[in-house]
């Protein structure tokens, strides 16, 4: 099955299913929503073609089309993909994370250290940083922002947006004008990465005026004040967001290799929710650059001379988590057989786009601590899958579906409609499993299934989660936290499993690598908790626009972007 064919049929299906329901108002809305939503997912892979085109030109306006729109201007509640991409350009982070090595370098903080327990982090800040209203960025700014992010402010209608991301946050102490100490009640190894993070749950520093504004006032551009290279000037919800350059910006992270203010005068983010219209607007020249390009459009756009900027979405690879509390996925041989029947290298060869990658671990390739299992536990071997099931006593029944002690090998799984190729790969895995006597029923849009029902009825649950840190495994799979594999309370050796996960919190950098490997060994070799399918990507396409930059969390930074003279 070729990619193009699949796309055509997916589109046709979409059109057909939208046809009949004119009066079912909400039903229609829901259906439309699912149709139109194809296409926001995380991504990665080294940029193709960025950086060409001679010396940068200063000035100009960039019209940039994308799928979503910031739901608010407040960077602290911008948890949506578009929201985080917008706010990434009006705020700065304490640290900068290298997108390839995952290493940290100075940004707003010049120095950072932590105690041995990882419960106390001390940052020394740059002294020349100002907010766009002229006020100084200092240790008090860090404290006020972290406090409000964690606690919220009921009087202003600000919710505790950062509560679940800051974890065991205790307090921030202002040690000096430009020295600040952040304390936690328990070890928190991932805080360093969070202080450089630009995706969901990122820490954004806002001026006092913003912190004192109510939730409602934070919808007005003049009240949203950060330290970033751009400031927001116009906001028309769901239509347009405009940011303009700050001429006195001079604290770009050294690692980006860009000094001084940004090149562009102005960026206009335009929301075009329908994917084919977005690509059409690009092709007709209505917009020079667009984001949220579907993997299926990559080939066409490249052929038409567009430059693509694409990266793998760092974090948890897209795939299934097994439900260890439900029969028959509580049988490890069934889980091993499913993993062996998933043809990951085959997907990369025949189904995926250039920007998407073969899954080699539960982590994507770029996340520090990643270990490659493609030749080991994740090797594709359909014969092995069959043998595993035979040996475990799962015998083919009259209808070809295997069974054991009266239990049929029939599974329920969820899919992912936001990433179009997820459907294709899940269907391929489904077909491969069918051929060895395993029946899988997939619900492709799982968004309306309540969490309880998911754990009570589904053997295979789709997961795809961004965060350029091994901590993502801890939050998602640790039986005492996310428990994504639904490990039962009486599971043998549960305490040791929890301990192995918890250990991730207690080390940073090189010291964390062996702990990260231990957790991945546990996930893939010992317990078989997930069946990764592939690594998703984020893609931007442009003509005459240079240096579109996707950072370590795959969010856009427009500091270095410029447009050819007009």
């Amino acid at each position, binding site marked *: 099955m070729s990619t193009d064919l699949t796309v055509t049929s997916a589109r046709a299906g*979409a*059109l*057909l299913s*939208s*046809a009949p329901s*004119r*009066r079912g*108002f*909400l039903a*229609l*809305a*829901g259906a*439309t*929503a*699912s*149709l*139109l*939503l194809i296409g926001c997912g995380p991504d990665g892979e080294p940029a193709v073609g960025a950086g060409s085109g001679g010396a940068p030109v200063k000035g100009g306006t960039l019209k940039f089309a994308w799928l979503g729109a910031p*739901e*608010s201007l407040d960077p602290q*509640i911008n948890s949506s993909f578009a929201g985080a991409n917008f706010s990434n350009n009006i705020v700065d982070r304490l640290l900068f994370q290298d997108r390839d090595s995952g290493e940290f370098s100075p940004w707003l903080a010049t120095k950072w250290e932590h105690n041995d327990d990882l419960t106390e982090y001390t940052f020394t800040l740059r002294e020349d940083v100002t907010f766009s209203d002229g006020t100084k960025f200092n240790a008090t700014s860090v404290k006020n922002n972290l406090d409000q992010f964690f606690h*919220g402010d*009921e009087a202003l*209608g600000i*919710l*505790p947006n950062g*509560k*679940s991301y800051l974890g065991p946050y205790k307090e921030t102490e202002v040690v000096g004008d430009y020295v600040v100490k952040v304390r936690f009640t328990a070890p928190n190894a991932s805080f360093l990465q969070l202080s450089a993070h630009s995706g969901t749950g990122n820490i954004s520093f806002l001026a006092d005026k913003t912190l004192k504004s109510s939730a*409602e006032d*934070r*919808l007005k551009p003049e009240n949203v004040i950060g330290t970033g290279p751009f400031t927001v000037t116009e906001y028309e*919800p*769901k*239509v347009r967001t405009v940011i303009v350059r700050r001429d006195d910006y001079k604290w770009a992270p050294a690692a980006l290799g860009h000094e001084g203010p940004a090149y562009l005068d102005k960026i206009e983010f*335009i*929301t*075009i*929710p*329908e994917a*084919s*219209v977005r690509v*059409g*607007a690009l092709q*007709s020249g*209505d917009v020079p650059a667009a984001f949220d390009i579907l993997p299926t459009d990559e080939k066409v756009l490249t052929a038409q001379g567009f430059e693509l900027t694409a990266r793998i979405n760092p974090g948890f690879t897209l795939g299934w988590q097994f439900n260890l509390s439900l029969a028959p996925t509580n049988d490890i041989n069934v889980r091993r057989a499913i993993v062996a029947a998933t043809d990951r290298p085959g997907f990369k060869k025949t189904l995926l786009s250039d920007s998407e990658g073969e899954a080699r671990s539960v982590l994507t390739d770029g996340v520090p601590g990643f270990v490659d299992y493609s030749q080991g536990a994740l090797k594709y071997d359909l014969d092995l899958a069959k043998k595993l099931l035979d040996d475990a006593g799962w015998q083919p029944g009259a209808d070809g579906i295997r069974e054991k002690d009266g239990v049929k090998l029939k599974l329920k799984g969820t899919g992912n409609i936001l990433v179009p190729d997820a459907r294709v790969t899940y269907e391929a895995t489904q077909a491969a499993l069918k051929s060895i006597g395993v029946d899988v029923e997939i619900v492709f849009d799982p*968004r309306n*299934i*309540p*969490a*309880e*029902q*998911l754990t009570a009825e589904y053997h295979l649950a789709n*997961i*795809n*989660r961004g965060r350029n840190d091994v901590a993502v495994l801890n*939050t*998602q799979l640790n039986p005492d*936290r*996310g*428990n994504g594999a639904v490990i039962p309370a009486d599971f043998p050796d549960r305490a040791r499993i929890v301990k192995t996960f918890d250990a991730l919190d207690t080390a940073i950098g090189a010291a964390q690598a062996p702990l990260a490997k231990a957790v991945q060994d546990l996930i893939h070799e010992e317990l078989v908790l997930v069946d990764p399918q592939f690594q998703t990507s984020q893609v931007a396409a442009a003509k005459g626009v240079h240096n579109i930059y996707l950072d370590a969390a795959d969010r856009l930074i427009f500091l270095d972007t410029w447009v050819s003279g007009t």
Partner: protein
Amino acid sequence: MLTYALLKLGRALIVVWGAFTASFILLYLMPASPIELLFPPNERASIDPQAFKEMERAYGFDRPTWEQYLDRLLAGLHGDFGTSVGTGKPVIEAIGEALPNTVILAAAALVLASLFALSVAWVATYLESAWLRNLISSVPPLLVSFPSFLLGLIIIKIFSFQLGWFPPISGDGLRGLVLPAAALAIPVSGPIAQLLLRNFQTEYSSPYVLTSYSKGLRKGQVLNTEVLRNASLPALTQGGIIVGELLAGAVITETIFSRAGIGRLTEEAVRAQDVPVVQGIVMLVAVCFVTVNFIVDVSYPLVDPRLKAIPKGVTA
């Protein structure tokens, strides 16, 4: 007449209250807490239960159901449907911002649709040639069955991307309104045209048409002066349904043409399961339906004198 209007008004209020109650039961009493829907299902399990409780309390979802119902009903009477879970903006404000765009779009589409439907019905009745008449009569069913999603994409592809006559992203201004209004009008005009066509044919075979001919009028004059008026009246009763079709069509049209309006608001609220916004929209739609039907009911006896003769009891 006053009793009649009051009866209709009372019934309208009951419908609105019913819609509020039904939407409350359906939306707020769903097995999943609306707060649960704030988090991606993937991440739900890793949210700190304490943080979850605080969020629930902040939105008032932790109180007993009947208390929430009474509070929300009382607030709803003042036009307050709470704040959007997604954006933190009051629902009434979000609707207020979106409504003008949709009203303009729907009004333009309604004018286009009515003109088109009327032309189809008029021409199909006027023509003498049976096969031509049948050909034109088959246009409305075609429009009804054509997927409006596909239609919008085809229109934008041809007139924006290929011919470049109109912008693909409809911002302000009349030029940006043409394509979305046409895309919305075409499917809506189908049912109106079907109804008018039928009425034209029924009226045209009525005895009074023979009388008009015998007075020496020509076919065009008969259609314009006699048939048109009598055939259009029943179309009025379709008002509520047409409003519903326009609003439902706006969901698709506004998405394809990147317009911010009630349709997009609906699509996004349903997608994000932003319960307060969904309920606000349900109430808006209910009020629209009821208002249109009320106006139609009340004005009908004024337009058609025969209805005044109907005994009061029958209308209640």
